């Protein structure tokens, strides 16, 4: 789990990609929903970042390249579907399974002793 989790929805995608497809996902995990990458650049370097991107196939490669180039230290979680309904199925499944990135996460660890 990263310190900051962004959900990138490309400006060319309609409101349904957020308000329908990602509704339950957002209600469960509350990522920061952005339409551009510039806000993400303000995260301090000592904080970790994860970026879930929603894209159709025609834009997926460019978005992936942009994320890799601009945020090489970020965990990129690309989701590529051409239709809102397909995206919703995947995101709802993640919400149901409590899997923010589509895979089981370790439970939040007990705070451990810090070393100097």
């Amino acid at each position: 789990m990263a310190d900051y989790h962004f959900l990138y929805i490309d400006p060319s995608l309609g409101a349904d990609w957020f308000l329908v497809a990602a509704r339950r996902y957002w209600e469960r995990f509350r990522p920061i929903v952005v339409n551009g990458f510039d806000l993400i650049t303000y995260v301090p370097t000592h904080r970790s970042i994860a970026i879930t991107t929603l894209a159709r196939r025609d834009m997926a490669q460019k978005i992936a390249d942009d994320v890799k180039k601009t945020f090489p230290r970020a965990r990129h979680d690309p989701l590529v579907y051409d239709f809102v309904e397909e995206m919703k199925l995947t995101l709802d499944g993640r919400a149901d399974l409590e899997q923010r990135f589509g895979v089981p996460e370790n439970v939040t660890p007990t705070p451990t002793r810090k070393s100097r």
Partner: protein
Amino acid sequence: MRLDEYQWSHNPRGMHNTQAAHFFDVERLARMHMGWAKIVAVDREFMNVIPKMLANNITPIVRLWRPRFGANGFTSDMVFAWKEYMSAGVRWFEFYNEPNLEAEWPVETPPDFNNVAGCIAPLMENWMDFAEKIIEMGGYPAFPALAEAVGRGEDVTSWLVTMFAYLSDNAYDRFRNIANNGLWCATHPYFYNHFYQEGANARQARSPEEQRADEGGWHFEYPYDPLTQADHPGLTAVSGGPDYPLGDPIGLTGMGQAFILKFQELFGGGAVPVVGTEGGITPVPSPGGVRQLDQRFPGFTWNSHAEATVALFNWLAQIGPPWMFGLTLWKDDEYWEGPSGPLPATRRLMETPPAFKSVPPIDALEGPGPHVVKVPVGPGPIHGSPDYHFLVVAPGFNTAWFFDNARDYWERFRPTVISSTDYIAYLPYAKSLGITVLATPDVAGFMTQQIKQRWPTVYFDLITGEQEADVATVLRERAASGRRFG
């Protein structure tokens, strides 16, 4: 100052006295192998027990009690008593007690974290005067213990956040100086049945009858324990999902964790000691009964309460976070003079040797802190229209009202949707920000205080309503008229 430089017994076990001016039996404390004794005093009436406590490796903590003390400053008689206790060997002192509760304030000025000028500011200013006086005398001052109240003006997490925000905005260097010279945090962890001992695996709890203090598998780390995380993934002491937007600190170390997290975030800590100066596994049991306030965890019985009480102190010594130094159980008479006689915990503590805690050398401050760069934190003034537009769904706001009614608004304006205002601080001063807040009327004041007062250059735009239709109308009209902020 480092965590390992504080002077104490290194034994997490502790007991709170029955009340001010009431006899405190040191020999009985010693038989229970206590390492801490919390003393609420009116004046110097406990001077005679301090040497006996220290001789038995029991570290005293002293708080002078004054009725409905509110945010008052210290007085000359208090200073005299502190000096006397200090000369007898006391180092650990508290000042305010549960300042988020009405019972601690004059009737005419009830506490409310929203009232920064009349409540938070005088409390923190007078507390810093106390802390500096104690440090000057060679002691350790406590950050006030907050009662674990939830909701409204007494809400514990909101109090902690607001107190820290005030210190960060108004006394950054002063507080860091206190932190680096003997600060500790007092908490009051009354944590009910928020613990368990593992059965076959980490997510299977033993029944109360099967619990044994001298066997492993105890979980006192709520809300970070496997059961809670399976139920609410990612829940922390200060943050969580829609059910717990401010987190859940009602665990043995929860409020300490909340304090340390905010201390690290806002002041560049490090760690300072945390001691629970009231609390325990509550309410205390009676023979034949089961206490199970939280149905997700096993209850506890007359006898299992004793096993768990011994286990919690062992856990603090051997497994708990390095900054959690102990807990003084509430309170001496409830353990010894209850309606059914002494609790079995008294016997189990007497027959079980204590575990001692090894403390690593962690600095109180780990670096210069986030304010070291003297540029304004957060966004700057707006010239024309803001560079960024955030839409904040406040804690407790029904998200369905947003998703069902914001289509045109979001489609047209595409605000950045966030749940926490922490991110605002990362925006550079060269950029400006407008924030639309969707909030229920009861948290509107809190959100205003959290955003408008902390970042006065941010354009603050509040949308609130008692009914879904109220919110829907505002969003629809704005989208139709092209007015992002109305």
